[in-house]
Structures are given as structure tokens and as C-alpha cells.
């Protein structure tokens, strides 16, 4: 995989600093409008470089082209608990928490339905994937936690949220199942998928320490007392 990561930004990228300086975010509506203007959409080629990943901020949209790797609980248990290096380089890779339904026809694997599984279960593995194997993006649903966020900051990684449940679309965006490594643990093996315009993926954790799920959660908690009050709940 010798080709360089390529980036094509359709809109100017906002920075956290810029958002803070503006300081004019008074209401939720204003906030949304500002985001609409400054959210960027990227079409990225894999493998991803650190430069490219560091350009991404939460709420940006990403479409991937090239190769992505499908991983799951057992795949990572084999890598980290059984200390087995992956049989293919994951340098600059985008790894998806995948839920594959495939069938083997002769020597080839064909897709039936490929979707995404909940990322929370696999939080413990992300720092290792980034530090030891050079993985740059985790694609999943539901997000991951603090240790993963720290790893993304340190090594230049990101978490890309896919639309969970939208497996029909996802399956269509997978052009081909290029290779299945560790077939003995299918459907939790290591999958190499060729993808075209794979997305939209939302940057939900970036390399600058931003965590969209935490932000949304914090906002929800801020609104909670008022909601309790309306429902007649005394705490």
C-alpha cells in the first residue's frame, strides 16, 4: 500500500480555536447554523496519513475510498489477548467494527449483508491498534471512551460514526470482499473490503480531544433538571 493519503475538502475547515474566539454562540439555533456553514466534507483515500487525520474535526463528514479492514471482538482478542500480530499491515488503516454476513463461493468470499456493530464493547483495543499497528480511523457506532480519545490525540487518530442499521447501503458501498484473514474465527475474522464512497461517516472523536458523544451527553444532562421538572420528578 504505497499510495499517499489524499484529501479534498469541499468546505473550509473550522478549528476549535476559531469556534471559541467567535464566542457568539447564544442559542442552539445559532449554534446549528454556524455548524452548517463550517462543517467540512472530505473524500479520503486510504491508507490515511497523520496529516489528513489531524485536519478532521468533530461533525465533519467523511467518505472513504480504497480499502477498509473489518474487525470485531474476537479479531482483537486474538491480536491483543493471544498476542498474534495481524497477517496484514494496518498502517494508516481505517478499521470498521463490522458485522459481516458473507458466504464463501469456491475460494472467494461474497457479501450478503455487511453492517456495523456497537463500538463500546471494543474500547479497550483501540489504543493498542493505534499505537502498535498504526491504525488511524475506527469506524463504528455508539462511540468509544476516554482511553481511545487519548490515543487519538497522541497518535493522530479519529473515530468515524456510521449510520447504524443502514446495512443495505453499506453493503452496496463495499465493492468487494478482497480478503478474509483468520477464516477460522469467521464471522469475527479480519476482513479486507474494497470500498467506494463509503459513508457518510461523521467525525465523532477527533485528534484534538473533541468527543461529539460526550458533548451531546453533557448538553442532555444540562437540560435534564428542566425535563424532570416538567414531568413532575423531584430529585
Amino acid at each position, binding site marked *: 500500500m504505497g499510495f499517499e493519503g489524499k484529501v479534498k475538502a469541499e468546505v473550509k475547515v473550522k478549528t476549535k480555536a476559531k469556534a471559541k474566539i467567535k464566542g457568539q454562540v447564544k442559542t*442552539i*439555533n445559532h449554534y*446549528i447554523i454556524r*455548524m*452548517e456553514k463550517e*462543517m467540512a466534507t472530505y473524500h479520503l483515500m486510504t491508507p490515511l496519513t497523520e496529516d489528513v487525520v489531524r485536519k478532521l474535526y468533530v*461533525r465533519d*463528514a467523511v467518505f472513504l475510498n480504497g480499502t477498509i479492514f473489518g474487525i470485531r471482538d474476537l479479531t482483537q482478542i486474538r491480536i491483543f489477548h493471544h498476542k498474534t500480530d495481524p497477517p496484514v499491515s494496518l498502517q494508516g488503516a481505517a478499521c470498521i467494527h463490522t*458485522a*459481516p*454476513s458473507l*458466504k464463501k463461493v469456491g475460494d472467494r468470499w461474497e457479501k*450478503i*449483508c*455487511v*453492517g456495523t*456493530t*456497537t463500538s*463500546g464493547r471494543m474500547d479497550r483495543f483501540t489504543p493498542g491498534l493505534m499505537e502498535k499497528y498504526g491504525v488511524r480511523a475506527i469506524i463504528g*457506532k*455508539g*462511540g468509544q471512551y476516554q482511553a481511545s480519545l487519548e490515543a487519538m490525540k497522541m497518535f493522530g487518530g479519529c473515530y468515524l*460514526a456510521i*449510520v*447504524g*442499521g*443502514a*446495512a*443495505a*447501503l453499506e*453493503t*452496496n458501498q463495499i465493492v468487494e470482499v478482497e480478503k478474509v484473514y483468520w477464516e477460522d474465527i469467521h*464471522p469475527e475474522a479480519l476482513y479486507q473490503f474494497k470500498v467506494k464512497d463509503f459513508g*457518510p461517516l*461523521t467525525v*465523532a472523536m477527533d485528534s484534538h480531544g473533541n468527543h*461529539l*458523544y460526550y*458533548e*451531546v*451527553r453533557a*448538553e*442532555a*444532562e444540562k*437540560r*435534564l433538571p*428542566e*425535563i*424532570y421538572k*416538567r*414531568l*413532575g*420528578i*423531584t*430529585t
Partner: protein
Amino acid sequence: MGKEIFLNEGGKGMAPFSYPLVEETAKELYIRALKILPPDVREALKKAYDKETNPTGKETLKTILQNVEVADNQNMLICQDTGLPIYMVKIGSRFPVDGARVASALKEGAKRATLEHPFRGSSTHPVTRVNPQTSVGEGLPIIYWEFVPENDYLDILMIPKGSGSENMSAMKMFIPADGIAAVKKFVIDTVLQSGANPCPPGVIGVGIGGTADLVGKLAKEAIARPVGSHNHDPFFAKMEDELYEAINSLGFGPMGLGGAVSTLAVHIEWAYTHITLNPVAVNTQCWPARRARAKIYPDGKVEYGF
């Protein structure tokens, strides 16, 4: 979509009701549920798209609608999680039927859907974690029975229940002194804890009353209702609206990435309980709130719907 489809017109030349027909219908129902999203769910998702103001949320709902379209046009599964099969069966009193044979036909039908379509089976031994790739096994499929006076047909509602949302379900035995406020708080807090995991915006099913087992079943029946329908009791119907408004005020948005639409509906089912009990259960359903229904008549006619 939305129209009832007559697969087997019955009448002259048709085979009358038989257990192989129940098996065939159970298989067909599983596959239909995985591919054809009910019209009320589509409608709710479209409304959600119109209502959503957050750009990420809107983009997410657009992708969801696109996905439903792709599944329709290319005859594909909406979601890869084919779930655990649940069959809710209503036996009409004017339709004498052998329940045991219906049960085994449903099990065989679910298994055949998995093997013959084929799609991923998710049923797994709870300790060894061995997956037979059949979607069934000890205790599965889940079958609920109900008996309805007057009806002269067998009504089967099939729900493939995915794990992303099922994993976020919760129940609690409150005491009577905690009152209805504790019940409401539990619903809100459960949704808050679930965050982005259950693929919102889906349906929040709430069970109130009964026993520890019944309250869970009530919550499941709640998610099985058409999206946006109301409980027959005005008190609980009002509470459904209240909780719906409250959950959407949290701002979680589609896929928990922020936005105005966090849930499509809150449905409550309830039952009388013990003087000392105050149980509540939340069953979470993801945005592909999948279900398929069939009515089987004595003459062998099968009517599919939702």
C-alpha cells in the same frame, strides 16, 4: 408498501389450513420483516427528517431513508442484525388449532428462513457462546400466545429483535411510595444511559405494572405497536406524549450525534400489579422498527401485512 398482499388466495383448488403452511408463513414472515419496513415506521422517519434541524442529524436521517430505499429496490436486508425471532400469536376462538404444532412450525420456519435465505443467525448458547447459525435453539424462537374471541383466523406478528437496542433495555421494581414519578424518571434515565447505542431514533417501549416477567413482556408488546399509536387508556396515552416530548428534549438526535429527533415514539403497555409492587421496564427498539404480520385462515388463505 402498506397494502396487504394476498399471497395465497385460498378458495378453490387451494390447500386448506395445514401446519406446513404455518411453517412456510413463519419463514416468509422472518424474511419480510428483515426487508420491508412497516409504512408507519417509514412515515415517522420521513417526518423526523422534515423536523430535524441539526445538519448532522438531518444527514443521518437522509442516509436512513436512502438505506430503506436501497433495501426496497434491491431486495436486501435493511440491517445485518437479523436479531432473535419473536412470534406474537393470536389464536381466534373460532379457529381450532393445535398450539404445540403451531409452536414447532414457527421454530422450523425461523430456522429455514435463516438457512435458506440465507442470512446470519445470531442465536447463541449463553455460556459456551456456540452459535448454531439457525436463529433458534433452547427457548428460541420466543413465542407469545394470546386468545381472541370471535376471530376465525390465526394472527402471527413476527419481530426480529436486534441486539444494539435490546442490550439497552432495563427493568426495575420500585415500591408504591416511589409513585409514577419514579417510573417516568427511570424511563428518561434509561434513555440517557443508552445514548447512541440503540441506533436512535427508534421506539421506546415502556411496561408498567404486573410482575417482573410480565412487565418485560408489556414493554416488548409496546415496541410491537405501530409507531405513534396510543394506549387505549387516556392517562397512559398522555404519559406517552409527555415522555416522547421529554426524550426529544434531550437533544441526542439521530444516532446520538445531536439533534431534535431522539425517538420516533414512546409506547406504554400496562397491567394491574400487586399492592406492594411498582414495576417498570423499558424495551428499546432501533430505528428499523421491523415487524411483519400474517393472518392465516381455515381455507389456507394467507394475508400479509404489518
